[in-house]
């Protein structure tokens, strides 16, 4: 698996080779630094710990600072990527070049918070009729059975907080990789606000 940490910059549009317009998300990817490694023998699984976007040393608590290998400045975003494919050792940097021949990627991030939302927006319920005397508009309807079980089953879809959770956009086409400028263009939208961290990996389903 390939993994990278990036920052969502915003969306734009690009003309494809056939002259058609394509919506793209611009992701900034500075070279990621390998901060640590997890091995099968020691940790029971293999992974690579990547860090990106420098943090001021004075902002980091000393015990946290000690986690970084020597000569590596502390990072704002540190993430483990399991079964990392490109060979790398601690202290090395992983750049966008690893995506050079990748056609599709998955991009994960924290989705925009939507606040307390009803059941139609949150769970795609159909809702009821708007007119003709209907008194059932955007409600959720029945939440369960009667005498048995006499309670609402856990996990029943209801209104509540929506968004602000991790979500992944799968199989996004890679439109352009510019390792020099640290810029990645993928087709379509990516979860999260501008300037939020996103995690790029090669597409699971392609």
């Amino acid at each position, binding site marked *: 698996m390939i993994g990278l940490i990036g920052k969502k*910059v*915003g969306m734009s549009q690009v003309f494809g080779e056939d*002259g058609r*317009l394509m919506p793209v998300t*611009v992701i*900034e990817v500075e070279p990621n630094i390998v901060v640590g490694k997890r091995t099968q023998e020691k940790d029971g699984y293999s992974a690579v710990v990547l860090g990106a976007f420098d943090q001021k040393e004075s902002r980091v608590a000393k015990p946290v600072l000690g986690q970084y290998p020597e000569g590596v400045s502390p990072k704002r975003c540190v993430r483990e990527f399991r079964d990392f494919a490109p060979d790398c050792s601690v202290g090395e940097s992983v750049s966008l070049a690893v995506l050079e021949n990748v056609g599709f990627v998955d991009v994960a991030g924290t989705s925009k918070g939507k606040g307390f939302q009803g059941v139609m927006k949150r769970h795609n319920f159909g809702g009821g009729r708007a007119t003709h005397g209907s008194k059932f508009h955007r409600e959720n309807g029945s939440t369960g059975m009667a005498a048995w079980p006499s309670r609402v089953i856990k996990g029943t879809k209801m209104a509540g907080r929506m968004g602000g959770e991790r979500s992944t956009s799968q199989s996004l086409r890679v439109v352009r990789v510019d390792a020099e400028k640290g810029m990645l263009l993928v087709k379509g939208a990516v979860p999260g606000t501008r300037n939020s961290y996103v995690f790029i990996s090669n597409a699971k389903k392609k």
Partner: protein
Amino acid sequence: MDLVRMVEAEQEKPEVENFRIGDTVKVHFNIVEGKTERVQVYEGLVIAKNHSGVRRSFTVRKISYGVGVERIFPLASPRIQKVEVVRRGRIRRAKLYYIRGRVGKRAKVAELIRKKSDIKKASE
């Protein structure tokens, strides 16, 4: 938004925009049919320009076999080869949507006739 601007700046084609609203233009548009490519010329009146930056687009209206046809072209489209100005128009609006409701002579835009001295001034 620096990177976004960079992506957009390299696509802009300022040389295409040599016309104004109210002008009659010929748009040379590349059409791909399977493997062959050909240039189609679409002639009509520019009734609107919209958006900014790379998203700039313009609307060209013409009457084709008695039916009004409007086509919106993205200015930065690589399929536009060139835009030829056939006739300059004298107009007092930024959007000429009022033309849609008019037929015949009333749907015309007066030609812009510029004094020689004005043209000189503009080119300076």
